[in-house]
């Protein structure tokens, strides 16, 4: 009997991909994919779905004698509220650069951290701040009060008549 052609391939002349190698690589890829997806799933945890910060809306009563152009800074909120002949408006006092609280000055606002200066309407005059201070939505709360929403910005110049 002559040897048949169904001899096992020699080490020097292997199959293109051995069956075991194929199965091994396949399972390795499957394990890798599973771990990858598990990793993405785990990464969802540190991103909070609900933010614990307090409500962004608050009600405020302005002092009777608030001159036009002078800000009222309600304690506990990073907002300056103004009243002039056109109505009431609120400007954020959080510096758009790195989040320090700006102070009201005669010329507008100044930031203590890196020296940004803002005009009375919140636009940047000097310093590293990349954006103007945002204006917040103000609504008439009745009885001489106003409701300021720090979560909603409005175009600069939006004022509310009582």
């Amino acid at each position, binding site marked *: 009997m002559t040897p048949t052609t169904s001899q096992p391939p020699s080490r020097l002349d292997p199959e293109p991909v051995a069956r075991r190698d194929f199965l091994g690589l396949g399972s390795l890829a499957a394990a890798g994919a599973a771990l990858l997806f598990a990793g993405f799933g785990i990464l969802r945890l*540190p*991103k*909070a779905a609900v*933010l*614990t*910060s307090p409500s962004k809306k608050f009600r405020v009563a302005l002092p009777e004698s608030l001159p036009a152009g002078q800000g009222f800074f309600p*304690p*506990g909120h*990073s907002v300056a509220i103004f009243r002039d002949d056109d109505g009431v408006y609120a400007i954020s006092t959080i510096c758009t*650069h*790195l*989040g*320090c*609280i700006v102070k009201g000055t005669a010329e507008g606002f*100044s*930031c*203590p*951290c*890196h*020296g940004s200066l803002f005009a009375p309407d919140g636009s*940047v*005059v*000097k*310093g*590293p701040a*990349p*954006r103007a201070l945002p204006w917040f939505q103000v609504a008439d709360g009745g009885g001489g009060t106003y409701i300021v929403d720090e979560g909603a910005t409005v175009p600069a110049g939006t004022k509310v008549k009582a």
Partner: protein
Amino acid sequence: MSSEPTPKTALRVFAENLRAAPGEIYRSLFRGGRPVTDRSRSTFVFNNVFLHLHAVRTHLWSLRWRTTLGLGTAALAAFLVTLVTGVLLMFYYKPYPDAAYQSIKDIHFVVPTGRFIRNIHRWAANIMVITVILHMARVFYTAAYRQARQFNWLIGIVLLATTLGLSFTGYLLPWDQLAYWAITIGANIAQSPREVTDALGITQSFDPGGLQRQLLLGSDVVGEEALIRFDLLHVMVLPLLLTGLLAVHFWRIRKDGGLARPDDADERVGREKGTGTFCAQHPKGRSGKRCLSPFPDRPAPSRTYPVFTEAPAKTYQLAAIVRGRTAWVSRSPEKTVPSMPHLFYAELAVLMLTVLVCLGLALVADAPLKELANPDVPENPAKAPWYFLGLQELVSFSAFMGGTVIPAIALLGLGLIPFLDREESGTGRWFGGPGGWRLVLQAAIFGTAATLAVEAIAIRYGWLREWFPGIPQLVITFINPGTILTALYAVYSLWIVRHYNSTRAGALGLFTCFLCGFVLLTVIGTYFRGPNWAFYWSPADWPKH
């Protein structure tokens, strides 16, 4: 009659074992015997999981103090000090707003030795940052990052970043004004990609900055969520990461063939007798001399020498599979000494010195604690820890470039060094390579001058927004003192590469420039910036209010 001894009863065996137990326990603890011969010293290192991160034998070149200045060991020592004191502080620290501040006050004023331990922790953390930076400079200037050591250099860069991360996260924990506003600034730097996305008007749909900030703070304000996250990072995630990477870092030193040394290190440690190297007369030496004893003029102790007359208990079979120029093939092992005791005693000395410095500083200077954090009123000036003040100086021009892009470029550039400079000359020598220390001096002068010039212009004349009101933000983001300085350094280094026709020379120039820039900006941020980040020659000139 049978002469067979009567079999012992199990009870008797038990009593004998009990009697022998102390000796057996001792022998199982010190399996190789006392480390008095070369062989027992080798097994002493080899059979200990912690010590075996070292090689069994150490080249004399590595033991010269000016090879390393002990900086890496000092950084490790400082880390160990922060570990011990940090665990002690955790006995009393409560990671919750206001309670955190009160507990730090308790540690400072009530807890026995609390203030001292906190001071040590603070100082050791500072010393760790300094020594890590200096250690990196040492490795760079001795060109010890090359072939076979590139991977360890990368590990080192990650260790540097982790060290800075540990310091930064520790900064928030006291929950005082200093902490609160430093973290507010830090979190907003994480958010600073918005500077670009806002200018492009795509923040609504693509906001990586906001995501980074929210992941860091766990909220949109610096509050209890932020504190617990920073606490977790500080006491668990980053220390574990650092410990794991440190083990790899040390083990790689051994695998990469010990510390980098010049090709002629063997001859040089032999020649320089009486200058800190170890020389002793020995009849077997090729040149009639062998340099092995720490005491030049005394005969070597007989039980340690000669070195290789004892049959080795362990042969280095692994040498066959170690790649590169790591195995000591065709090199004489004679310029090496057993790591126990020579290397370990040197390391112990550095450890003790570091602890001594920490204790001394902790005795004379208290760690600061300001008022309770007040979200309504920022510190003025609000300053980050000193090693971030250089960054804060850059950030005061543009948050995105100064706080994100330029540090990323610096870290990336550092990581790329061993892959861009693949020359061979100068390895293991201080300021080795074309140009040498003259080039480093020249680069230091250029780096200092460029930094001072750009800073002086920005301080004296302001910047683009003052000159052209209404200029688009993107222009300021990409053209500001920080980016101009980075560009100046880069152009200068490219010129050096061309002038010396050497990548190593360019690397020397660039690294020196960045080091000068880092130091100068840190000094300006620390001593010359006052309220509103305005320039003052001295804190005495700060406005009083």
